């Protein structure tokens, strides 16, 4: 099992998680010329993730879940992260830059934007 970065990261890409990831497994996508673009978010390489859990509390957008706890609304994001396996050459470790910490209201607004209902605790593992 690995951790998964969900769509709550999209267009936010806080990068705090990268500063603590021990194995450099949090990556950004750089589309090759003529290649297909992926959503503007970070991804976790499931083969390199060691389940250390260090990235989860770092993400101010609460976008990172253990694979088995990914909310049902974000289920496609598991496969999206797994794309790193097939297209590893298109991913790289981004440079860490400090970002503004979002307010609780902004985090809640982002969750609503992506259709997360309740506290988001109902995941794939509890189905």
């Amino acid at each position: 099992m690995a951790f998964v970065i969900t769509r709550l990261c999209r267009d936010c890409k806080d990068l705090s998680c990268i500063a603590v990831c021990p194995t450099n497994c949090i990556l950004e996508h750089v589309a090759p010329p003529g290649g297909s673009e992926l959503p503007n978010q970070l991804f976790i390489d499931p083969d390199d993730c060691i389940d250390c859990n260090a990235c989860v509390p770092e993400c101010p957008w609460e976008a990172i879940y253990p694979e088995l706890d990914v909310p049902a609304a974000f289920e496609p994001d598991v496969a999206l992260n797994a794309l790193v396996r097939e297209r590893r050459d298109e991913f790289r470790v981004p440079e860490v830059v400090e970002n503004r910490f979002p307010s609780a209201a902004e985090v809640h607004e982002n969750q609503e934007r992506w259709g997360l209902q309740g506290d988001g605790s109902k995941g794939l593992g509890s189905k």
Partner: protein
Amino acid sequence: MPTTIHIYRIICPSLREHASYSILLYMKTRVTFRIEPDLANALRELPNQTTFVEAALRSALGRTCPLCAGHGRLALRRLHVANVRDSGIERLTRHQAQELQQVFRLGQQVAATHIALEKQGDRVRFRMSRDGGSLLSGNLDRQEAN
């Protein structure tokens, strides 16, 4: 019938050394390179430039690298880090994760192939190895020491 070189050696005994030296020179490979004028002047003043340059090169190159066997290139090999949960560790603290990050980067630099993790009481112990041979071991501290 004496050869020309035999005659020369009779005339001039010291030619034996010169002849041997010439033969040795032909066994070597000629290398041409450009250097700064001051270095070139210093080199020209030396009595035996070839011997000096050879010794300097051997000294600079040192021992043959045990990783690449002198080829200068290493095959790209993945550094595998043990899964935290499989190692009986619930999670890493932020500080432990950052310490492991440093260990991981060091491991990449020294071409390590594996980092094993083990829970020892309240501590997390790591052991870095290359093909089964231990390179480094230590503890990941839960918190930064005061």
